């Protein structure tokens, strides 16, 4: 088989896989943001919980970190989701009532605390050096079947998630969420327990993010505190969701695939440059993705993005 075509084929698989993992994260964020209007600036934290849980549960014994449980990968993913959900539940109970920017600060803080934990608790996580040799689904198969199988698995997971979420959106639960988003006071007056429903959405979204984290740990076969870094773990997911059209599950998937492809291909291009330049262009990429967000926000502010009918900086109009 032609070497170059083969290489391109593998690359496309990697795009689909990473894009797919990001799609999972974006779907999780969409539950929290698009569905419920919760501003989570700490996506990276939940990703990290999922990744580390999977890594610790599934890797073999090691002296440098917690491990040796040797659990099968699906169990690892399951617990990734559960732990992520549990921590989200704890945070949600405390922070769900907060106004959007306070919630953003709080979630960013949580992500930072988690990063500190992962970085400092060397006995469990091996700190900055991270956990390697994470098992990966289908890795025992021969190349390229192993890659293809993994990619198909990720895409299958996305499909299942998509169907479940669309089902949820149309369900009574989903309709109540939409009602809360449109007019919180009316929903409250109708007897809906707004806080509990919001926490539910936050928790489910976090579980999905944990799943994404678990998949990432498998795919990279490695995890370290850098994985929860705000740019790639949180900000990129935000841009994906907004660019794809937040509130919209299909948009989340498309946005993730699209933005990841752009992100990845620009990395290829810049890595061709001589070393001194390559580092600098890494910064340029971050700069440009930030700029893209500004442009999208300015174009579509208020239109595309669902906003909670809560207090804004200006007082609500009176009437008489």
């Amino acid at each position, binding site marked *: 088989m032609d070497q170059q075509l083969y290489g391109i084929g593998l690359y496309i698989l990697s795009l689909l896989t990473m894009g797919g993992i990001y799609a999972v994260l974006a779907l999780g964020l969409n539950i929290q943001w698009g569905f419920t209007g919760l*501003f989570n*600036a700490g996506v990276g934290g939940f990703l990290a919980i999922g990744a580390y849980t999977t890594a610790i549960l599934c890797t073999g014994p090691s002296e440098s970190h917690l491990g040796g449980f040797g659990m099968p990968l699906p169990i690892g993913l399951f617990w990734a989701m559960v732990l992520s959900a549990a921590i989200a539940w704890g945070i949600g109970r*405390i*922070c769900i009532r*907060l*106004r*959007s*920017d*306070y919630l*953003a*600060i*709080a979630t*960013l*803080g*949580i992500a*930072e*605390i988690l990063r*500190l934990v992962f*970085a*400092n608790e060397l006995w469990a996580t091996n700190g900055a050096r991270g956990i390697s040799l994470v098992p990966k689904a289908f890795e025992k198969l021969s190349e390229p079947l192993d890659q293809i199988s993994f990619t198909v698995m990720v895409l299958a997971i996305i499909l299942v998630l998509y169907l479940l979420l669309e089902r949820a959106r149309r369900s009574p639960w989903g309709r109540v969420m939409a009602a809360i988003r449109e007019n919180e006071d009316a929903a409250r007056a109708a007897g809906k327990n707004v806080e509990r429903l919001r926490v539910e959405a936050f928790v489910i979204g976090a579980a999905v993010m944990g799943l994404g984290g678990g998949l990432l740990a498998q795919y990279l076969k490695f995890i370290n505190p850098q994985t929860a870094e*705000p*740019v790639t773990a949180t*900000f990129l997911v*935000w841009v994906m969701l*907004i660019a794809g059209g937040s509130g919209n599950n299909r948009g989340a998937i498309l946005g993730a695939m699209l933005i990841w492809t752009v992100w990845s291909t620009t990395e290829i291009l810049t890595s061709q440059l001589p070393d001194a330049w390559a*580092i*600098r262009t890494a*910064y*340029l990429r*971050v*700069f440009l*993705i*930030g*700029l893209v*967000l*500004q442009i999208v*926000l*300015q174009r579509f*502010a*208020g239109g595309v*993005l669902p*906003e*909670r009918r809560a*207090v*804004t*900086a*200006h*007082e609500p109009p009176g009437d008489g």
Partner: protein
Amino acid sequence: MIEFVNFHLIPGLVLGSIYALGAIGVSLTFGILGFANFSHGATMTLGAYFALTLTWATGLHPLIVLPVAMVLTAVVVLGMDRGFYRPLRGSSAVILVMSSFGLMLMLRSAIQLIWGPQVHALITGIQRPYIFFDTLRISPKHVLIIVSALALMYAVHWLLTRTKTGKAMRAMSDSPELARLTGIDTEAVIRATWIVSAALAAAAGTFLGLDSQVETQMGFKMLLPVFAAAILGGIGRPYGAMAGGLVVGLAMELSTYAWIGTAPLVSPGYKSGIAFAVMVAMLIWRPSGLFRGRVF
């Protein structure tokens, strides 16, 4: 006791002063523009880098070039407002926060592009500490930082209570709509707010650089403690922010003291977590802050 004062209390006051300056800016923009400015940390970093470059160029002490660094930082921030925040004026807080998050990354990567990722020292050479009573040691730069921070805080106080613009800033923080209806030029007040916030951020960044080092992540590391300080003091309450900054700084430094036994109470690696814990506690217990700021 001596160890306590030299290695915990004084660093706590220094860090607290730095956080206070950052928190005043955040509190002002939060109160007047209505959103949590996530790019404030990057502004502090920018100020430090401007001071660094000016120090290299002129050979003068950082505190002498600081005013120029403050002006340069203010110019950049005004440009940011013009290009990115003003088009979104009136949007919901979420959109503004997202924009500021993006600007944080843009600003940081611009700094990395221009200056590179290396770490720098703002002043070189070893400083002999002042020694009081044969035991109290305080280094000259710490004295400079604390004194300068106090001077700046007084300047802010003077601005807010003696000038028309300062009073208009407080008015707008109380009620943006009433300010408009009173005829206050809200765009002028917003510009003034950005200038004050940027100048204080530049000072905070420079002082931090003086105290430790100048590197591209320094602002981001300060962001959560600064937010915590602003929330602690009450949003839109600059005086509260000053107090909040000191509390957070002291809490962080004092937390690693061996209050019980010989080991630090809180492991140094988790020091920044203290600020966050303080903030969450405030948000649960008293979201309006110690000095009853706006809760929105």
